[in-house]
C-alpha cells in the first residue's frame, strides 16, 4: 500500500501526518524549513488559553518520533507531481544536508564559525552564526548551515572541530522520487507584506513591526529575552498601539478578512499587560471579530483599564524624530480625528497563502480551492484563513479523506 504525502510540516501537516500514521497507514511528510512546526512554533502563546504552543507541538513530535510509519524530510520541497489518485509519482528536492543526522547539537561549531547570518526565525531582528540551531525547541534537534553565508571548504573550521564527523560541506542537493496514493497540501500561510501598505510606513519606521514579528519580540527565547525591547533604541515601550486590518479587508491589498488578527492582537495586548502592567495600549479596529465563546476574551480586554479599543481604521502613521509614532484615525464613535502617539506599533497583518511550486487550482486570492484532481486535499490555511484549533480540525478531516484512497 502506497503512503500518503503531506506537504508542509506546520501545525496542520504534522496533525494530518500523525493522524494518518496512527490509523495504520504510511505517511511521508515534507517541510521546506530545516525544522517542523511552521508558523506556530514561532508563537509566544496560544489564543485564548495563553499557553505555549511548543507544549502541544512537543507531544506531536514525540508521536512522529515513535511512529515507524512516518518518514519526514526537512529542507525539502515538492518539484513535480503526476499521475492520479492511488498512484501519484512525486519528485522531491532536498537542499544540501551539510549537517548529518548524527549531529548532537553540542554547539562546539558555534565557537569557531566566523560568519553571521540574520536569524530568519526571528525575522532578521537577531543574528546567528552561519551554522546554527534553528531554535531552542527545534525538531529535528540538529544544526543546520546557511548556504548563503557559509564559506564552505575555504573555511572548514566547523568540520575540524566537530567530534562526531557530522559535517559534510560538499553535500549536494538530493532528488527523491516517491510514489504515493494521495496528497495533503498543508503549505500554510505567510503574513502579508506590510511594506505594500504605503500609508502605514512600515518599511521606513523602525518601531513599527508586524504581529508575527511581535510574537518573537515577546517570546522568552526570542528577540528581547523576557523583555519587550523596541528596535530603534532597545528601550522598553510603555505606550503601544495595534493597527487592525493592516492589509486585510482592503481591496487594495487583501480583500478578505484574515480571521485571526483580532484575536491575536487581543492576546498580544493582554500579554503586554502581564509583562508591563502599567503600559498603555490602544487597539484600532474596524470591527472586533471574535466569535462564540472567544468573546469572553474580548470582555476581559475591554475590562482592562489600560487597554483602549478604538473603532476607526488607522489611515496614516508618521514617525517623529525620537522614533515615536503618530497614528491617525477617525474615532468613529465620537466622530473626531484622533492622533495617538505610541512608542511602538504592531500592524495586525493578515494571512496570505504560501507559495507552492506545483500547479493546483487556486482562487483569485491564491488560496488553493477544494476542487483538485481526486486524491489531492488542501488543508487549513492553504485554502482559507483560520486559527490553530480550526486548522487542527481541518487537518484531521483531511487525514480521513486521504486514508480512503487505496
Amino acid at each position, binding site marked *: 500500500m502506497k503512503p500518503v504525502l503531506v506537504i508542509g510540516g506546520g501545525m496542520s501537516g504534522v496533525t494530518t501526518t500523525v493522524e494518518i500514521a496512527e490509523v495504520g497507514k504510511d505517511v511521508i511528510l515534507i517541510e521546506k524549513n530545516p525544522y517542523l512546526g511552521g508558523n506556530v512554533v514561532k508563537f509566544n502563546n496560544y489564543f485564548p488559553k495563553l499557553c505555549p504552543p511548543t507544549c502541544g507541538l512537543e507531544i506531536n513530535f514525540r508521536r512522529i518520533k515513535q511512529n515507524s510509519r512516518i518518514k519526514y524530510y526537512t529542507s525539502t520541497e515538492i518539484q513535480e507531481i503526476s499521475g492520479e489518485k492511488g498512484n501519484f509519482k512525486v519528485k522531491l528536492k532536498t537542499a544540501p544536508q551539510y549537517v548529518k543526522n548524527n549531529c548532537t547539537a553540542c554547539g562546539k561549531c558555534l565557537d569557531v564559525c566566523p560568519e553571521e547570518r540574520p536569524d530568519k526565525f526571528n525575522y532578521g531582528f537577531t543574528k546567528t552564526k552561519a551554522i546554527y540551531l534553528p531554535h531552542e525547541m527545534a525538531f529535528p534537534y540538529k544544526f543546520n548551515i546557511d548556504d548563503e553565508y557559509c564559506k564552505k571548504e575555504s573555511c572548514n573550521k566547523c568540520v575540524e572541530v566537530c567530534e562526531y564527523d557530522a559535517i559534510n560541506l560538499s553535500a549536494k542537493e538530493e532528488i527523491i522520487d516517491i510514489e504515493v496514493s494521495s496528497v495533503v497540501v498543508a503549505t500554510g500561510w505567510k503574513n502579508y507584506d506590510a511594506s505594500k501598505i504605503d*500609508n502605514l510606513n512600515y518599511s521606513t519606521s523602525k518601531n513599527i513591526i508586524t504581529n508575527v514579528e511581535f510574537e518573537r519580540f515577546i517570546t522568552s527565547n526570542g528577540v528581547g529575552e523576557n523583555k519587550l525591547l523596541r528596535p530603534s533604541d532597545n528601550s522598553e515601550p510603555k505606550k503601544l498601539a495595534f493597527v487592525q*486590518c493592516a492589509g486585510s*479587508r*482592503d*481591496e*487594495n*491589498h487583501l480583500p478578505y478578512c484574515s480571521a485571526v488578527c483580532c484575536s491575536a492582537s487581543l492576546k498580544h495586548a493582554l500579554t503586554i499587560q502581564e509583562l508591563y502592567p502599567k503600559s498603555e495600549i490602544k487597539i484600532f479596529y*474596524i*470591527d472586533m471579530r471574535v466569535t462564540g465563546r472567544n468573546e469572553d476574551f474580548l470582555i476581559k480586554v475591554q475590562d482592562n483599564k489600560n487597554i483602549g479599543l478604538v473603532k*476607526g*481604521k*488607522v*489611515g*496614516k502613521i508618521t514617525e517623529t524624530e525620537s522614533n515615536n509614532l503618530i497614528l*491617525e*484615525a*477617525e*474615532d*468613529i464613535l465620537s*466622530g*473626531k*480625528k484622533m*492622533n495617538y502617539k505610541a512608542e511602538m506599533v504592531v500592524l495586525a497583518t493578515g494571512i496570505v497563502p504560501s507559495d507552492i511550486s506545483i500547479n493546483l487550482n487556486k482562487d483569485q486570492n491564491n488560496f488553493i480551492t477544494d476542487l483538485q484532481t481526486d486524491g489531492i486535499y488542501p488543508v487549513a490555511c492553504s485554502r482559507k484563513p483560520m486559527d490553530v484549533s480550526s486548522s487542527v480540525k481541518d487537518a484531521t478531516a483531511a487525514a480521513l479523506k486521504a486514508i480512503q484512497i487505496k
Partner: protein
Amino acid sequence: MIEVSPDIKFKKQLKRISNSSLNECMQCGTCSVVCSLAPDERPFPRKEMIWAGWGMKDKLIGNPDIWLCHQCGDCSTYCPRGVKPADVLSAVREISYQHYAKPKFLGKILNDPKWFPVAILIPVIIISAILIMAGTFQIPEGPVNYSKFFPHAWLNSSFSFLWFLTIGLGILGLRNFRNDMKKQDPDLKPTGSFIKNLFSIRKEIILHSNFSTCTAQKTRKIAHFLVFYGFILLLFVTTFAIYAAVTHNYPLEFKNPFKIIGNIAAIMLFVGLGIMIANRIFNKKDFGNSTYNDWLFLVSLFLLTVSGVIVEAARFINWGLAYHLYFFHLVCVWFVIIYLPYTKFGHLLFRVVAMVYAASINRKLK
C-alpha cells in the same frame, strides 16, 4: 436619538451619478484620515458616506463639507472597499445644483443628457429672437464686422440683462443653501458678516492653497489656476469691451493692451482646460468618474475659448463662416455664463458660500 428617513429616490440618484456601491462602505474612517483637508472635528467624508448609505438628503445637501472637498481623490485611492467617497461627494454637489435651481426646470435640463437638445434650443431661439428684434437676423455683406450681425447695443444690453437675471436667480438658490446649512447645526452660531468672512478666506481663493495639499494629482492646481485667472482676465477685458463699445471705436486694434490681455487669457484657458480634459481621459484611475455635468461645463468652456479665438481670427481673414461661428460662440457664452448656477460652473457660487459659512462657524481645514 437620530431619526432616519431615507430618501430612496435621492439615494438612487446618488448611486447612479457617483457609480458607487454606497452600502459597501464599512465606516472604517480611512477616508477621513487620508484626506488632506478634513478638520479634526467632524472630519469628512466618512460621515457623508453613512448619510449617503441611508439616503439622508437633508444632511448631505445642507452640508458645507461637501464643498470644502476639492476632489483630489486621495480618499478613493485608499478606500479599502472601493466605494469612491470623492465621487459620492461630487455627485452630491451635482445634485445640489439641481436642488437649489430656480427655476427648477433649468437645473433639470442642464444635468440630464436627454434634455440637452432643449438646453441648446433655449439660447438658439432667444438669441435669434433678439436678432430678429434688432432687425439683423441675416448674414451681412462685405468685410466681417460682427456689429453688423449683432449690434453692440443689443448684444451688451441683452446679455448683461440675462447675466444679472441668472445671478439674481442663483442668489435666491444660495440663500436657501445657506439656510439649510444653518439648520443642520442650530448650536453653531455663525459670526461675522459675509464680506468679513469672505475676506478671511482670500488666501485659499487667490492662491488655491487647498489644492496644494492634493498628493494624488499635482497638475490639478496649475490647471485650475490657469482657468480661474484666464477667466477672470477675460471677464475684465469683456467689461472693458462693453465700455469701449460705448465710448471708443470697437472692435479694438490687435495691438490694444486689452486685446493682448484677452488673447493671453484665452491661451491660459486653452492650456488649463486642455490639462483638465486630458487628465479626465488619460488618467481615469486617479481622477475618478466624470459625469455629464462635469463634461458639459468643461466642454462648453473649452468650445467657448476655441470658438472665441477663431471668431477673432475670422475677422482678420474675412472668413465666410465667421457669422455662423459667432452665433455658435454666443451659444457657448450662454452655456457658460447664463446657465452658470445650473451647471458645474455653479461651484463658483456654492463653494464660496460654503467656505464663507465654514469660516463663520470657525470650521478650519487642516
